[in-house]
């Protein structure tokens, strides 16, 4: 019967669609004129800046319920939006966790080992403001 607990199940299976390949990735230290808001454990948190990694892919990321994440080394970045030109803007709100030179790949949550490798590496190439 029921037992209310926090069972994260982060290793649970994810979609098996073929993931797109990364064509290019550009990491920018971005500051916001209007803070970006995210919910974290039920609390609204405002961010004045973040690392944005703009990723172009060889095909669209599938619009599934469970969406791919961007791996920067061991770090999973799930938060992304689709840009008008069909690229993807991934948001890293804890940039200190990202290591320069770490490999960048697309994969499914919890499945870094299966993530695609394409020689792309994390490197902040400039600043931006939005």
């Amino acid at each position: 019967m029921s037992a209310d607990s926090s069972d994260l199940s982060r290793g649970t299976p994810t979609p098996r669609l073929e993931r797109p390949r990364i064509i290019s990735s550009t990491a920018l230290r971005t500051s916001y004129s209007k803070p970006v808001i995210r919910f974290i454990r039920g609390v609204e948190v405002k961010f004045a800046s973040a690392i944005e990694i703009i990723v172009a892919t060889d095909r669209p990321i599938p619009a599934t319920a469970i969406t791919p994440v961007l791996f920067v080394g061991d770090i999973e970045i799930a938060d992304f939006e689709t840009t008008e030109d069909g690229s993807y803007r991934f948001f890293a709100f804890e940039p200190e966790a990202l290591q320069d030179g770490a490999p960048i790949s697309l994969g499914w949550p919890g499945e870094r080992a299966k993530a695609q490798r394409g020689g792309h590496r994390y490197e902040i190439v400039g600043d931006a403001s939005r």
Partner: protein
Amino acid sequence: MSWVSGVWKRLRAWLRALVAALRTGDRKEDGSSPGVGVVHEGLTAEQIEIPAADLDLRNDPSIISPPIVDPVYACSSVVVLRGFIAHADLEVFVDGASITRVPGGFPDPDGQLVELGFQLVPNQQVQAVQHVGLIASGLSQPPVVARDYSQDYPHGPPRPEVNPAPVLVCGARTGVGNLLVGSSVWITADGAERGRTEPAKEQTGVNVNPEYALGEEVRAWSQFCGDASPPSERQDPQPGPTPLPTPGFEDYVVGAEQIVVTNLANGAHFTLMRNGVQFGDSSAWGGRFLVGVPPVAATDSFSAVQRLCPGDVPSSEGKSAPKPCSALPAPLVAPVQHGDTRIKLVQHAAGSVIRVFAGVTKIGEGGGDEIALTRPIQHGDVLYIQQVVGSCVGSTVRRVEPGCVDPPITIDPADLDLFPVGSSTYQGPSFTSAGVALSIKGTIFYPADDDGQDQPFRAPLGPVPLVLMVHGNHYKYRDPNDHTIEDSTPHAGWEEIPNHRGYEYLQRLLARQGIASLGVYSNETNGVGLSETNIRQRAALVEHTIQHFKAQQDAGAPINGVAVGFDRVGLLGHSRGGDAVVLAANEISIAGVTVAGVITIGPTDAVFASPGRAVNTAYLSILGARDGDVRANFGAKFYDFSTPTPFKCQLYIDRANHNFFNTEWGPDNESGEGPVGGPATLPRYAQEAILRSYGCAFFRAVLVGHPMLGYLDGSLWPPNVPREDIHISYDEEPRDLVDDHQQANGIGHNSRGEATQQLSGLHADEYSFRQTQATTYHTFYGNTDGMIATTEGPGGVFRSPLGPAEDLTNRVVWIRVAEVTNGQGVPAGATDFELGLLDAGGVEAWVDANEVGGVPRPYLRTDSYPKTMLSSLHFPAECFAANNRELRIDRIVAIQIRLNRADGRSLAFDDLKLARRREQP
């Protein structure tokens, strides 16, 4: 257990297809009702056809079945009788007094209407007897009590349905269904009456004069007890096919007295020839037409032509000849379970006499699609069913081994059709969630005065419940010329995908039943990664949409006058929308708003860390075993989390995928379904049929109070769903628990604190049924603890004492069970177990799980994710008593599980409890 699959349309329509309205004299017709798609259906009883000569069946001519009296309401001056032998005399009794005796004609297609000569008043009791020669049946039992119809239809008679539709230009006869027995029914064209029939049966033909013309607006109407129904859906007469199809004939054998002409156009006039000579002619409402004929001789032949408009070239001539008597098959029987007092046939020859034997002893003889028995089906009965057509006695019989539990297939909860359906789009002010502007907009469906866009709300209903339907993440744009080409960004000439309109097929049904609903536009939350923020934005859409509608209503300006009862709000969410509605149900706090029930379909679970993932209202979790997107079936966790207050239900559906519940979402491989392997995906229409039936059952139960829980606990089956694919878990309050393995007292004690025993080589322990790769059993995806049992050899027993002896009369033992899979594959062949009761005198009795439906097989996925998914089995206590007459079910002291199979497989168990037997409506 063997599973016999067939291809069915709706069972009810199918049964009607063997039954239809009385035309004139002995001519009867039928039309297949508007289909919702063909769905296959399992007949669970063991059914084989064997030679009658192998048996010594005792055809005692003195045993004939009582007729079946259809439910009837006060005000009716007629009753409908079924199940009688062709040409029997029918005698009707009201309050014990004989009222009339009439010749019965044929029971096919849908029984005989018998005039009483007066109107019934509430609580009068109707019974009937059939007479064949000097032999009389017993009185039909139990008496049918004439109810005040307004108890079941407080807002007037249901709206008539033109059936079949559409009507055709020059059509001269129209079938009308969804009628109350004894009502008046009439047809109008452009407002002028064209034909009337009274009193009517549930499905009735109306002759139309003059015939329909192009451009006319055709409606059917009915009246009962002085109250008028809403009009039927508008029909626009369509030109008939050119050329008209050639009439066909269903097979019939020498000796037949009723033949079936098929392929008739709607409203067509047809002429039947016998041996080249005109036998008769008639108009037909289309589809099938049953004609009474003199006994067919081996040398007879029949032919038929049809026409629609005068002067048209008639169709080609369809011809037929009788088959020999040896071609008469045994009838096919619907599920039968212990205690049944009738059997339903799903296939039989028109006009045939049906004989039912238990062993070699006759326990019923009647006709038509349902036969009353002279005694209930008992444990150990083996039934033989035979049909007789005239002088032709079937050479084979259907052998049926009824199960202890083999639930009947009954009417579809989606079929209730009371009101016309209005629809509209709505738009409210935008709002901001997490910095993103979101629009309040979508579509609304509601009960209306008439069908169509922006029709006025059916105001006499007063406030109606409201359901919000919330879609999930999907592409936002598509090629208008090829809807399978989709993207998250727009391309030149593309259109926005109306993802929120993907559940309109359910919205329309709910509106017919008096429930308004919204398709909530959520595209502005699509095209982003799965995150807590995204789910909270979707939940905010739900809350703001309710606020918008409530504010409009409070201001006296609801859209099209739709009055909403905000104390009866339901939520349905699909995929990320499912995640959102669970959150919304927990967090919505709007004065005067009560969320009474939640349905999730393949929900994500992105708000991991938030408390309150339980649904604390009525809850239905729909899970596709073949879901290639949310493959972890997170809804199983939600089910386990949730309180059964007042109830919760889980449908785990083999072959069901993620997308096909939404009509706007594309095919498997284009829209998020991975290659999961295993059997082919359940077709889209079948998945929609599941949501139609169970969605209506759920919201009718929760929001309107209709007696629908039998569908949700698995003791009734809708006719249109793929039964063999659906595995139900169900729980409700109050819970008379024996063991749910949640207490910290180990396997040695059950939830009542009683010491359990492991006997005869059984090994059992308690385990987490959560999905964790590290444990021995890593194929669970729920959120509960349970018991896994294995045995050293067949016969290991787990005993769970109740404490003081309990009376289990009219009670049922419930248990959730699953075959434990290793996640790599699924072994061949089913496994099962036995459940036992032990009384205070040490007497025990066992019932095999396969007598109550059996342990479901794990769904075979070749992607390494077969799951151990629990389903509920229900064991009526009376089944144990039937297996051992020595057992005292009024003094039961323990429940036992015996692993009696030699396959060495492990079984998982949970939620052993006692419940009252549910009274079925």
